[in-house]
């Protein structure tokens, strides 16, 4: 088990290092720079600004400087938000992104697993059809169509919830969390349904029933591990999906998280901010992939020794 953990951590570290190197050089390759969209400034001033951010140095020197800063936990200054460091911006935005992402995963897992189990136990019942419909809608209708529609219906027409922003406390988080959770509810309920149906056909489930164990106990004690293994395997990809979705959600609902910063920063070539957010996102995805593998390894010896 320790060897397994070590290997996964080493692989994750390598991927993160590759991510840092590739992102750094890709950003420099992209045409345009952080100050090319400014109003006309004299060449001398531009030279001074570039010198201030070390953009006049050769790229490899900039990279060495960046890595040195990174080793000390310093993501550097933002080039668009003049008086802020990237650390400040991430510290201010990340809690919002994490809160919404966390609740979206919680809601998606609970609702998705419940719908999937209901569908598997009562096949072709009303609950099964409801789960199936949510599954199809959640996969086929994109977040950026459902999000604005939800705003129009629940905020503008019915006025139950705020349209956007974060001024309304927990009430402003309801729509972002639900919309972000929806596609994942769809995937998780499909996964749960299929794997539960498969698990119910296993011999050990038949044995448990034959021994006279009551149905609720069979479902809760004997089929859960088998049912949840594929769902747990989806946890890693789900993190990536949540990050993709959160960029949209934060744009649609005007949440001041890091997803909104990322798109603006990429368009404005704010190199340090793009790098910082890439590292945070990449780190999250890699961490959750490792966590997923560990959970699976712990629950399923075939993964551990395979």
């Amino acid at each position, binding site marked *: 088990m320790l060897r397994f953990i070590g290997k996964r951590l080493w692989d994750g570290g*390598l*991927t993160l290092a*590759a*991510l840092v190197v*590739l*992102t750094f050089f*890709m*950003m420099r*390759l*992209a*045409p345009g720079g952080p100050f090319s969209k400014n109003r006309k400034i004299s060449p001398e001033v531009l030279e001074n600004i570039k010198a201030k951010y070390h953009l006049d140095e050769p790229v490899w020197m900039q990279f060495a400087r960046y890595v040195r800063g990174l080793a000390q936990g310093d993501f550097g200054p933002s080039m668009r938000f003049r008086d802020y460091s990237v650390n400040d911006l991430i510290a201010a935005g990340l809690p919002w992104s994490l809160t919404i992402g966390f609740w979206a995963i919680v809601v998606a897992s609970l609702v998705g697993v419940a719908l999937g189990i209901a569908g598997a136990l009562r096949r072709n019942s009303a609950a099964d059809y409801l789960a199936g419909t949510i599954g*199809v809608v959640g*996969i*086929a*209708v*994109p977040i*950026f*169509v459902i999000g*604005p*529609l939800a*705003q*129009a219906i629940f905020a*503008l027409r019915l006025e139950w919830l705020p349209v956007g922003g974060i001024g309304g406390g927990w009430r402003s988080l309801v729509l972002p969390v639900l919309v972000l959770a929806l596609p994942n509810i769809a995937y998780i309920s499909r996964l749960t349904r299929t794997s539960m149906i498969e698990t119910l056909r296993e011999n050990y489930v038949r044995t448990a029933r034959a021994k006279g164990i009551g149905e609720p106990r069979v479902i809760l004690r004997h089929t859960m591990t088998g049912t949840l293994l594929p769902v747990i395997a989806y946890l890693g990809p789900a993190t*990536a999906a949540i*990050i*993709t979705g959160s*960029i*949209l959600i934060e*744009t*649609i609902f005007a949440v001041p998280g890091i997803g909104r910063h*990322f*798109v603006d920063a*990429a*368009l404005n*070539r704010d190199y340090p901010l*793009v790098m910082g957010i*890439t590292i945070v*996102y*990449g780190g999250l*995805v*890699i961490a959750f*992939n490792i966590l997923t593998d560990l959970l699976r390894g712990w629950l399923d010896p075939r993964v551990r020794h395979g």
Partner: protein
Amino acid sequence: MADGLPLDETAPPPGRSTLRLQLDRFARNRLAMAGVVVLAFIVAACFLGPFLFPFTGEDADFDYILAPIDLTSPHPFGTDDYGRDLLVRTLEGGRVSLAIGFLGAFVAGVIGVLYGAIAGYAGGRTDGLMMRFVEILYGFPYVILVILLSLVFGGGNLALFAAIVFTLWLTPAVIVRAQAQSLARREFVEAARAGGMRGSRIVLGHIVPNCLSVVIVYGSLLVPEVILSESFLSFLGIGIKEPQASWGNLIQAGTAAMDSDLRLLLLPGTMLAAVLFCLNFIADGLRDAFDPNDR
């Protein structure tokens, strides 16, 4: 014909090919066939529909600014705030989204299949290196890669296309590589090699054709993914930009106007969702018909 049996030599032999059987199975899937019909209708509407109107989606009509739905006016579904016809714009946007979707899935599929087939056939060090590269790219959060690539390629439609293709060829590569690996050990491949056939011809002539049914199934899932990526990026303002229409940037414009008029959001949104519904049903149908594991 004393025995009463038809002895026509040109008649096909009894029994049907696997492909025929698979297509028949697909045709019996009602949801998938409905998807094909609706999708064909939407494609025809997008590519032919705009010709029925005397103006294009980029022509502003100053007599009809923000016109409502009125089937008797020259703009049956109304206009946007520049007086541009909404229906024509949505159809023209559909052309862009659909063309990028099918072309992108095709190109990503071809790259993925060739890459996977070569890696799987070659095996050993080559395979290890090639798949290591895929693994590293896989470790990247998808959004970050696609956004950065579209910037590196310089913005514009071609850059968008290249960025999407470059991020989506990985899955077909992995799937085909697994298939190719097992094919490479089969007798007919060994026979081809013993007969002196060159590696490149074995890959193209033996490995790729035998992966085709897997490729069709997963390729059909690529199309909605490409369409979704394109509209996602256009929605964020990174993809296709005004005045050219695509479903993504039309939905974005609809979002901005939604407190006064939901129509701007609903028309392109419904079209996009309908296409994605159809493509998902078709992909499900193809998987049921072609995937030997499910039989």
